[in-house]
């Protein structure tokens, strides 16, 4: 397993801006944790397992039928928005 990683790139992928101090501290913390999980690298595992379930009881996820049901009202859905107008969420422009 690889230990080296680019903290700036990971932070960018996670959409979190980090100060230089944070980058240093978190890099050091993550190195220690990644070193610990290296223990898995020696484990012999069947790489051909295709049915690795997300559900720990190995159940299929059950989705509802696509039928309209009562849900939050428009106002309720917007009630916690940091900025909303005219029934819409308002965000800064995507491009400068």
């Amino acid at each position: 397993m690889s230990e080296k990683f680019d903290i700036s790139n990971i932070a960018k992928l996670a959409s979190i801006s980090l100060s230089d101090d944070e980058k240093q501290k978190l890099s050091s913390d993550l190195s220690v944790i990644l070193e610990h999980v290296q223990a898995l690298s020696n484990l012999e595992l069947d790489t051909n397992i295709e049915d690795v379930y997300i559900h720990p009881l190995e159940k299929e996820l059950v989705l509802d039928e696509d039928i309209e049901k009562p849900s939050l009202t428009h106002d309720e859905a917007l009630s916690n928005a940091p900025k909303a107008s005219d029934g819409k969420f308002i965000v800064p422009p995507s491009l400068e």
Partner: protein
Amino acid sequence: MELLNLSIRELNNLFVNKKAKPSELYSEIFDRAANSEAALHAHLSLFEETNLEKAKNSDERFSNSENVGLLDGIPLAIKDNINIKNEKTTCSSKMLSNFISPYNATVISKLDTEQAIYTGKTNLDEFAMGSSTENSAFGLTRNPWNTDYVPGGSSGGSAASVASRSSIAALGSDTGGSIRQPASFCGLVGFKPTYGTVSRYGLVAFASSLDQIGPISKSVDDARIIYSAISGHDSLDSTSINDEQIDLPFDKNATIGIVKELMEDGISEESKKEVDKVIDILKQKGYNIKEVSLPLIKLSISIYYLIAPAECSANLARFDGVRYGLRVDGKTSYEMMENTRAEGFGDEVKRRILLGTYALSAGYYDEYYGKALRARKKMVDEFSSIFKECDYLISPTTPTEAFKAGEKTSNPLEMYMSDLCTIPANLAGLPAISIPTGLSSNNLPLGVQIMSKPLTDNSLLNFSEMLEKELDFNRTPEGWSK
């Protein structure tokens, strides 16, 4: 009348026989909760007005013999990552400090049907990530047994609330031990049900394949009453299951396994002694006891700290400053998101999001997340095989007694190790319970954990109740008994 130490069944009996009223209990509980805040800070909010009204309505029902069940008029504390409509759900994060939930979690809708009432919302490690309740953005919670010590986490507020008699019982959530570890640190019962038997709808997601809601209580019977009320299939949760419970023997025909790997290095002598004490009781009662080995348990922290952060990084992507929660301005949407997440999340949450992002990133997915998933599958197989020869598995709940506040905050890995015994049940979706067994030389509670195969929750509770009676642990921390 001293009501705070009574069980749910005892309280119900008093209400039914008109020897006490729910509103009297609520007043006592609310006074205790308000008065304990300065010393413990178990709660992030207390609901005096709205719920006093509910307690009076409960008085009326008992007076007219129209009460609905055992939880009618019983004050419960709710971990602040579970949504109650029109109340704040902060998850102890600056990100959600002003979030008012527009809907009820399914567990709350079910408790409403039972006419339970709520003392308030309890403190937790931010987004349930932690083992000490020190990661809360709104201040740490202290252990009622000794306020120099942590109450455990992440449901530390719920445990401190019940232990200080500020609520009769509480709901917590358990992703890697967050119900059982604080219950053990505070001398209480903590029950993590089989994954999928309690709906996660309305629980703010941390790691969806591991999270499960359950009770923290003074007795196994209280845990059973709450589990019975909150469990059941829910179409609003795609991982909810609708399977029948499986019965296991809980008398001396049951076979008990002692998990070898959880009685070795890293476990304190005091924690091991509690397991030995339980083994002696079971031997005297004629149970068949055997040592069992689950080699992969040794790797459970490694498996967990890849899967849980990976799921966390995906779940917490929703906190982007657009639809709810904090927003910190930026010139573009992307800059706004980066600034919002930098300001809104605390250190531990950032650590886990970054770890999960790395484990899922291109080129590393198979090496980390994929490998952890396959190792998890192998661990599930190990448990399945052991449960062919054993009905219940016993281990310490925690490697040590509660630790001092500040003792582990600078070393994340050391903090993670405090969940060594509890994480395997989450990885395998098993029901697992912690029951208090005794006190350490520092006068702090210790407990043992009992696990059983999926869907044997009711049998596990019956077996635990038998042990609870034999252990006869005095569960009231000094200073909070009256």
